[in-house]
């Protein structure tokens, strides 16, 4: 009973924090139908700002800056106001230009905003934790309930603050004229605009209030756990989103309920399940996935929010942008269009260029970098099948990649070498067997994970796949016997052919290039057939595709399978090329990065993923020459995020979008000209 009571109390504190963040997600979603992933980062900013304002001095960008040393309430208020303003600015710059774009464009932008804010925070405050200062309330004796449950005064303050904030918000939405305008905009934005509601101002208000709530939750979290850190917002952000979905996204009471449930389940799960603390992150995501499967509208939500998006995820050409940039793009587009029309010869031309580059580049360093370009290009091609062609935003793709990498590493290292003492060179051929085997295994896995998502669309699909990806990562970390856990697997042998090691950087590059030829060829053959036409038809109009006799559910699973196959296939080579893997290699960030590469290059093209990978890796290396970046390596990610945001606003179709992919079998039309 004592133990239970204590867990209950902990759960309530955690639940209050989740509930406050969930309110942020729900408020903005309600008004603009945007899942703003960046709230996790605004949560983090709230924590950093409060902590900094309370301290006498803080090290910012490496220099010690004197700070006012405010008491908690004033620091908190300041942090909430500043974060609210940041939220409004983010909306103005990154989201407002995309208000009429397809729904996934702002979603991807919000992921980019998230990356930018997190990298900037790490640049400013450094990679270490910033300790939350001592203050009067925290030094008071804890309150003891029933002789055995300890609640600190601050725990009570956290709960009371959450209750007051949420009641206040509910009253505000119900009674004030701005609140009424918010409800009207939530129902129908166009109609609200027609009756004279300044919708942009209402949306800005929603962002301001939401960001304030996120900041409040963040500073309470920092206070409870005693620190602020640049990546602290990531998991609570995802969990708050889970809580919002749990309660029914768009509903404020739902967010409160969802937060509470999630906090309690997590605290009790951590306390009672065997090894519960290690698995507690998985508990939330299992809950999320289960709920989305059984009741996607959440506990208190309305069903229509799982609505169908039609058409490409990102929309067509944008006419925004300065003249010279448009001209550059026009030149580039003409080149790509000609290349795409040439088809196979153009592909051979590019391959020849890659071969020549591979032979000529003198330094091992650059060969390794080029190998990474090819690996990321292949992985992005796999993701492109599901996201670019079938139009399903999958944030769990890394799981398939992980399946391939782990399969081959476990077989070679943990089973054969450690278990039976068989040297890798004796079984060099196993690598070539593992490639298709891992592909099939990952494809099976993809179908397994894809099946429960079939009912979901748009944002919900993205959230569910994200949940799956996180579950897989937590399993990889905790299933020590299978994966070696966080230590990872070392000593994975380099590729080998008939006893000849292919470990040299040049050999690896050509190995990767050969695999890329296989991947692109296979994907292209599938896309340029009735299968690819069915995928694109599903992306463009699922109902019409179904009415034309396309079994859409089955073809979505085929897309998952094809995408999973590529992930597993490439994952095998990845493991052998890196020779060391750990769960860190397969984080959500990697998935986001791959997604950004595809978006950067152009969704639904064959060359786009490679263009994206080339630009990204080249950018990473070139940026290292800048003195500022040398001092603050994280700024590279911030820059990538900025590039992506700019791209979403000015060129949502991606750089290589003009390399349009034909969807009929090459050669099948040869005779028709006659």
């Amino acid at each position, binding site marked *: 009973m004592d133990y239970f009571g204590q867990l209950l109390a902990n759960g309530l504190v955690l639940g209050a924090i989740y509930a406050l963040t969930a309110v942020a997600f729900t408020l903005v979603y309600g008004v603009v139908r945007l899942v703003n992933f960046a709230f996790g980062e605004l949560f983090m900013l709230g924590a950093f700002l409060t902590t900094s304002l309370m301290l006498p001095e803080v090290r910012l960008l490496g220099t010690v800056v004197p700070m006012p040393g405010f008491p908690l309430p004033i620091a908190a208020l300041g942090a909430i106001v500043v974060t609210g303003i940041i939220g409004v600015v983010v909306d103005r710059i990154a989201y407002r230009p995309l208000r009429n774009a397809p729904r996934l464009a702002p979603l991807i932008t919000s992921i980019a905003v998230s990356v930018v804010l997190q990298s900037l925070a790490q640049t400013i405050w450094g990679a270490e934790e910033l300790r939350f200062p001592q203050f009067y309330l925290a030094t008071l004796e804890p309150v003891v309930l029933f002789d055995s449950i300890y609640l600190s005064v601050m725990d009570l303050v956290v709960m009371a603050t959450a209750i007051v904030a949420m009641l206040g918000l509910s009253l505000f939405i119900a009674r004030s004229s701005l609140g009424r305008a918010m409800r009207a905009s939530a129902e129908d934005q166009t109609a609200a605009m027609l009756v004279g509601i300044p919708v942009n101002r209402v949306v800005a208000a929603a962002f301001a209030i939401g960001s304030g709530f996120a900041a409040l939750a963040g500073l309470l979290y920092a206070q409870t756990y005693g620190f602020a850190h640049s990546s602290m917002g990531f998991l609570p952000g995802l969990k708050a989103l889970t809580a919002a979905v749990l309660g029914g996204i768009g509903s404020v009471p739902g967010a409160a309920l969802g937060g509470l449930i999630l906090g309690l389940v997590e605290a009790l799960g951590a306390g009672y399940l065997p090894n519960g603390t290690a698995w507690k992150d998985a508990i939330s995501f299992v809950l999320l996935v289960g709920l989305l499967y059984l009741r996607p509208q959440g506990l208190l939500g309305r069903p229509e929010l799982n609505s169908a998006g*039609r*058409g*490409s995820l990102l929309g067509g050409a944008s006419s925004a942008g300065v003249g010279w940039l448009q001209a550059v793009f026009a030149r580039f587009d003409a080149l790509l269009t000609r290349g795409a029309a040439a088809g196979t010869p153009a592909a051979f031309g590019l391959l020849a260029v890659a071969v020549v580059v591979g032979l000529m580049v003198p330094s091992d360093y650059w060969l390794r970098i080029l190998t990474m370009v090819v690996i990321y290009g292949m992985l992005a091609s796999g993701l492109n099948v599901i996201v670019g062609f079938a139009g399903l935003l999958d944030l769990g793709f890394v799981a398939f990649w992980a399946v391939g990498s782990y399969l081959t590493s476990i077989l070679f290292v943990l089973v054969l070498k450690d278990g039976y003492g068989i040297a890798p060179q004796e079984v060099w051929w196993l690598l070539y067997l593992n490639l298709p085997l891992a592909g099939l295994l990952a494809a099976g896995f993809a179908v397994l994970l894809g099946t429960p998502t079939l009912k979901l669309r748009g944002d919900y699909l993205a959230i569910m796949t994200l949940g799956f990806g996180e579950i897989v990562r937590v399993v990889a970390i905790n299933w020590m016997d299978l994966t070696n856990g966080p230590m990872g697997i070392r000593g994975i042998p380099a590729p080998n052919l008939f006893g000849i090691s292919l470990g040299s950087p040049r050999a690896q590059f050509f190995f990767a290039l050969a695999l890329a030829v296989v991947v692109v*060829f*296979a994907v292209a*053959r*599938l896309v340029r*057939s*009735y*299968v690819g*036409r*069915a995928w*694109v*038809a599903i992306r*463009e*109009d699922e*109902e*019409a*595709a*179904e*009415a*034309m*006799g*396309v*079994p*859409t559910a089955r073809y979505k699973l*085929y897309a998952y399978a*094809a995408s999973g196959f590529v992930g597993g296939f490439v994952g095998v080579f990845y493991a052998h090329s890196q020779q060391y893997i750990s769960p860190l290699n397969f984080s959500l960030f990697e998935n986001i990065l791959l997604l950004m590469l595809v978006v950067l290059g152009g969704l*639904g093209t064959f060359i786009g993923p490679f263009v994206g990978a080339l630009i990204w890796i080249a950018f990473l290396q070139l940026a290292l020459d800048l003195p500022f970046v040398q001092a603050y390596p994280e700024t590279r990610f911030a820059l990538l995020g900025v590039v992506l945001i700019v791209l979403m606003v000015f060129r949502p179709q991606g750089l290589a979008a003009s390399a349009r992919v*034909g*969807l*009929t*079998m090459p*050669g*099948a*039309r040869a*005779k*028709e000209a006659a």
Partner: protein
Amino acid sequence: MTALLEARQVVVRFGGLEAVGGLDMAVARGAIHGLIGPNGAGKTTVLNVLTGFIRPTAGRLVFDGEEIGGLNVNGFARRGLARTFQNIRLFGAMTVLESVLVGAHQRFSSSAPALIFGGRAARAAERAMIARAHELLTFVGLGREVVDRVATTLSYGHQRRVEIARALMSSPKLLLLDEPLAGMNALEKQEIADLVRQVRAQGIAVLLIEHDMQIVRSLCDHLTVLEYGKRLADGAPEKVLSDPAVQAAYLGRTR
């Protein structure tokens, strides 16, 4: 001879609203069957029921002697019911040829390995369907010059024709057209009406929703009139259109 498509006692309720109340109708083989009625009578709802988009609250659907009520939408299409939409729904970003080929989806059967390794049968099927698509595009009156254009960039009238070609691509037994003449001028209407007759001449039955009574009178062999989701009249056009109840429904509501 039995009817091609039979709806028996079909009821559709949305919450408390009864959109279709106990409808019986039958579409004969090789017929051009008109579905008419004032605005809000439930015509599109009936069409959606007949193509599987809406699962009726009660009632049976028999197509070509087979019970089809429990099938998915793609199951309806696979059995030979093809449709067009009131608001044209072509696939954006696809060319005319590619869009039309989607209509032939069920006629492809090559496996993934066959597609990847370039099986002879896979190539032959693709070739045959592309040839068929060209035939059908010519049949609906579209020239070679539009084949490789993105379908949604064509004129409204041409988009309608692409949609009809796409539906015919599945070699249906029954073609369902939801207001195919909407928004067209007199000449275009005559052209589409002629096209519908040619479709029928190939042995494909047609069910169409239409408001233009002159066209309906000259085009249809059989009419079903709906009012408030119920069948008001059913039979040959001359007989139905001279029915006082039908005239009252139209005159009372449209002017």
